[in-house]
């Protein structure tokens, strides 16, 4: 790594406009077989995005896995050749970062196996489809003319997928890799609650009651909102692109994106990951931006350009998007959706979240199982019904960068008839 860093720093000194993003480290995936055994996969690699910005401010990028100074140089030359036709960017904001301290954390197959085994032992009754522990020990470096910024991301994630009658349900937890292993109790409790909800079919809801979406269900709505507020998506939606300062949601909705404790201080373009308020009491304040999307909309950057491993490109992404708590009105009778069946996609159309969820109709202390129900929730129309947000936000294993709390929505949804049967539950 130090040889590559040296090479990158030398290139930046010699070639005005050159800069580099480098991710180096280990990714361990341990997939446990509940019937015994398991398989671990350790990937050690260095991914580099070489960038070249012309004197006019146009940027070209090239991405690859590199091991040598020569490969790094070749990558930068590709970036330079693309820069003349690249997007025109505003000057980056300078940031400062303290030097790294101490050695990097180590991934550990034994620790991962222990965590997976503890989870399986606590859930003997469940048919587990997958138990996955993912450990990341990555060092991120941004090398640019203003200096070298480095930080570490060292996390452990536990993800479990279990079979319920109508389909699979998912639970998970995330924490720092250096701390004691993740406690499995919360994951076990969450999974049991979902499985209990779906163990038998319930009846249809009896009335258009207020709706309470618990975190496994609300995460999909928040995921849809994160997608909508991405600068790349908002570009094609005039209402959002020009919506800053406008009231789009009720005053109960304040949406923030905060780095988790020990998380990122700068994004993969070297911009500060300062706390970001996207919606303040219903008023749109900002979008999730990488530098190119901010430039395209002539908006200030928001330091949310992160490398997407599948796209192999930097795209606007949230770090830890959540809604701030807003006390809901007391509810005596409501429909509470607590379990979500995994579907192949949750956004069947842009801005429309489609779900299969089960839950309970609650009348005071009486709870009657309902569903599984199909829901089609247009994100904007649904969140306009927001009457409260609980302070129980949880990491969502299915929606990257989302911390989902319980959402309280007013009644008034409908189930438009589709032929002889009622269709999915939807607002708007």
């Amino acid at each position, binding site marked *: 790594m130090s040889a590559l860093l040296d090479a990158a720093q030398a290139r930046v000194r010699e070639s005005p406009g050159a800069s580099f993003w480098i991710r180096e480290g280990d990714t361990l995936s341990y997939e446990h*077989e509940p019937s*015994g055994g398991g*398989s671990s996969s350790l990937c050690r690699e260095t991914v580099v995005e070489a960038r070249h910005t012309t004197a006019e401010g146009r940027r070209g990028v090239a991405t690859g*896995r590199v091991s040598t100074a020569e490969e790094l140089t070749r990558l930068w030359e590709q970036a330079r050749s693309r820069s003349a036709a690249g997007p025109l960017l505003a000057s980056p904001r300078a940031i400062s970062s303290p030097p790294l301290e101490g050695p990097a954390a180590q991934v550990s197959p034994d620790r991962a196996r222990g965590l997976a085994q503890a989870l399986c032992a606590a859930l003997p009754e469940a048919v587990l489809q997958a138990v996955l522990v993912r450990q990341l020990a990555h060092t991120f470096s941004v090398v640019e003319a203003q200096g070298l910024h480095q930080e570490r991301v060292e996390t452990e994630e536990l993800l479990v997928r279990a*079979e319920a*009658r109508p389909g699979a349900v998912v639970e998970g937890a995330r924490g720092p890799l250096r701390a004691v292993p993740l406690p499995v109790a919360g994951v076990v409790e969450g999974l049991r609650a979902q499985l209990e909800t779906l163990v038998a079919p319930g009846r249809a809801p009896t009335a258009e009651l207020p709706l309470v979406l618990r975190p496994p269900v609300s995460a999909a709505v928040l995921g849809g909102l994160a997608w909508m507020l991405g600068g790349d998506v908002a570009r094609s939606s005039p209402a959002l692109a020009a919506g800053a300062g406008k009231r789009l949601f009720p005053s109960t909705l304040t949406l923030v994106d905060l780095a988790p404790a020990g998380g990122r201080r700068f994004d993969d373009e070297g911009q500060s990951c300062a706390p970001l308020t996207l919606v303040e009491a219903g008023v749109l304040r900002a979008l999730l931006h990488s530098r190119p999307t901010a430039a395209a909309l002539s908006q200030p950057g928001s330091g949310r350009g992160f490398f997407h491993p599948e796209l192999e490109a930097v795209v606007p992404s949230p770090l830890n998007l959540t809604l701030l708590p807003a006390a809901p009105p007391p509810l005596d009778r409501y429909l509470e959706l607590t379990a979500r069946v995994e579907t192949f996609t949750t956004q069947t159309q842009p801005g429309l979240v489609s779900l*299969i969820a089960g839950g309970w109709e609650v009348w005071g202390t009486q709870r009657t199982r309902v569903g599984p129900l199909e829901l089609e929730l247009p994100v904007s129309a649904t969140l306009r019904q927001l009457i409260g947000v609980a302070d129980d936000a949880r990491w969502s294993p299915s929606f990257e960068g989302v911390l989902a709390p319980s959402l309280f929505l007013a009644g008034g949804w409908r189930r438009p008839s*589709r032929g*002889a*049967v009622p269709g999915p539950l939807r607002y708007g």
Partner: protein
Amino acid sequence: MSPSFFAESRRVVEYRLNRRGEFSTSSQGLRGLARTEQDGLQWGQQSSAERDAVAEAARLAGPAAAVAQATLEEPLPPWLEAEAAERLAGDLQQRGVAGGAAWCEVVVQHGLQRAACGAEAEPRHGLREWLILELRAGLADGDSVWRCFAYPSLREALDAPQRVQARLQELLDALLSGPRQPCPQGWLPVVMAPGSAAGSFFHEVCGHPLEGDVLLRHGSYLSTRLGEKVAGAHLSVGDDPTRGGEAVEYAFDDEGTPARPVWLLREGRVEEPLLDRRTAQRLGRDSNGHARRVSYRSAPLPRMAHTFVEAGPTPAGELLAGISHGLYIQHLLPRHMGLLSGEFSFSVVEARLIESGQLGPRVLPGVLRGTGLDALRVLEAAGDDGRSLQSTRGCRKLDHGPLRVSFGQPTLRFEGLQIEPGP
């Protein structure tokens, strides 16, 4: 079991021409090596990229070292250049719009993968290539139709422009066939078109439930029914990576096991699961060549490659006869699948009414739902006209994806399936 390795050098280029005439390129290049060792029931894999991988390859034992190094260092054959792709896509877009579509989008994906793998004493190696072309054309009201086809090599694609144009015409004929009717509702006779995206039905309903890891945890409605009859004798479903043509093809899987066809259901009976080495060992069987990896960075899993329904003796043209009111399904997308119960739902993206034994107008989107056992039981005939389909979408089993898969099927008739209007 002896240590094994997997080395690959891969480039996948994808070109898109959107409806506004904007042409874009994305490209993924991978070069790396994974080494797998077993300790009891624990399998561990360590992978590295680029130069580090070449250095690791040199440390492999026996003939594997030379084979892996060559795989990593030999340049890949030429891939489809942007200029040729833009010309091809532009021509198709122009023909689509001239043919009556309001807009037309084209995706061209060309992939090349040089792979070597297996036991270090007995490595296998070869080159895999594919070219996928997707067309979507639409009308101003949002209605659109999608078609997709694949070639085993770039040369075959460039040498056969008439075939592409014929598919485009087929797409335009469907798109311009008149306004869509509401999707019908109820338990209706259903016919699935040959080689259409309806093939994903058997991938979900028969394929995943019979993968080795699913069997190990008794995790599906078919996993406890090996040897049982679940459909009529006219239904045989298999997975065969050796068929070629438009199908996903390989001579050996990603653990070096020779590929072979596997019958999932044979003459209506549940026959054999899809296995990699690990699940084969646990089940006391031999691997049947279905270990597949998304890349050198992922561990292998038992997966499908080309899942097909065997053609039957009935002339396909006769399968609509006698249906007074039904649905002819041309494109399905999976919505959800409950492996344990076999409950499924699919979005019906493209379909036509069947009226008095004839194809009628197209219908608006719908939903197909049911359970695997019921659906297999009411499949009453397979036509004599099998065709294949491969798209860029891929399979994402347990978040290991996208992995190229393909489907093959003849025209199929179900006595009845539950259909309802969709979103």
